[in-house]
């Protein structure tokens, strides 16, 4: 028996609260809710975000009158989904294919992180120098 619940979808550093239908193992959201939260929507061409469309092998498994199935949505993009139905939350990750492709370009992935004073620093601001990235921890 499907229940309508508040559900949190985490994508990167963004956590979006949205209304979802939970039915056993399935979490479904209305298409416009999904579009608002992720920018993705199902069109005849496939699963699309802006001009980018991914063909969908089994559109019926992805979406029907009940809404878009979150697990199928992640799978259609090859993205990992850490789902906790009891806690009403899921985290969408980046696909291994995308990560591998980026690493294979050998371009150092850019990032912005804060220092102790909260000032943001961006790696690419140091273009033109030899940069040694030292990743460490107190552990």
């Amino acid at each position: 028996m499907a229940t309508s619940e508040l559900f949190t979808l985490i994508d990167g550093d963004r956590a979006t609260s949205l209304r979802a239908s939970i039915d056993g193992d399935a979490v479904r959201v209305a298409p416009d809710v999904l579009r608002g939260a992720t920018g993705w929507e199902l069109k005849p061409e496939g699963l699309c975000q802006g001009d980018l469309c991914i063909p969908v092998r089994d559109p019926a498994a992805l979406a029907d009158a009940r809404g878009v199935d979150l697990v199928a949505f992640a799978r259609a993009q090859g993205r990992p989904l850490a789902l906790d139905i009891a806690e009403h939350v899921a985290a969408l990750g980046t696909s291994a294919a995308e990560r591998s492709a980026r690493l294979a370009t050998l371009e150092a992935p850019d990032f912005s992180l804060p220092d102790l004073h909260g000032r943001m620093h961006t790696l690419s601001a140091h273009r033109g120098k030899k940069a040694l990235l030292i990743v460490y921890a107190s552990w």
Partner: protein
Amino acid sequence: MWQAMYQELGSHGFVPITVALDKDPEDARPYIERASPTHPSLIDTQHVVAELYHVINVPTMIWIDEQGRIVRPHDSQFGTDTFTAFHGKHSAPYLDALRAWVREGKGVLDPAAVRSHQIQPTPETQLARAHRALAWWLHQQGRVEAAERHFLRAGELAPKDWTIRRGSMPIRGINPMGLEFFELAKEGVPLYPMEELPVEGGTSRKTS
């Protein structure tokens, strides 16, 4: 000591960028304040850099050239000899190799060699990261038991990733230098493919 390297080599176009994979800036504060760095010393509570560069343990060093290209990928190297008795690596050859890179452009790997020495992300390691992110969020919400489940699941999916298995210990209230870590260490330290490329030491010695 990276501040010392920065002072020595900064005028040759070198910048060290330290990134602390700590749950709280306060955990990294003692290290940073002791060093009084003028180079970027950053805090990465969400493990952004760990994911982008496929870091599986600390410390990890990555060389990035002037065009923003990786010329030596993730590598377990040390800037001091504090723990040489444990891991067997000496810092002096590595620091000399850094000098040779900065001053003479030596020691870079060609693109094929960089690629063949990078660990490839897999669906499991990526799912592990999603569980870690979920665990982190749950913990921030005070849902500690649920967070624990997902930290553990992340560790099951990526058993060779100590940024998850050891890195999550502080937030889970476990001493990362204690018994649980001792047990973890019995599984063997995670290794990068770079282990097969020992640092040459360079010909550029430290000059005062």
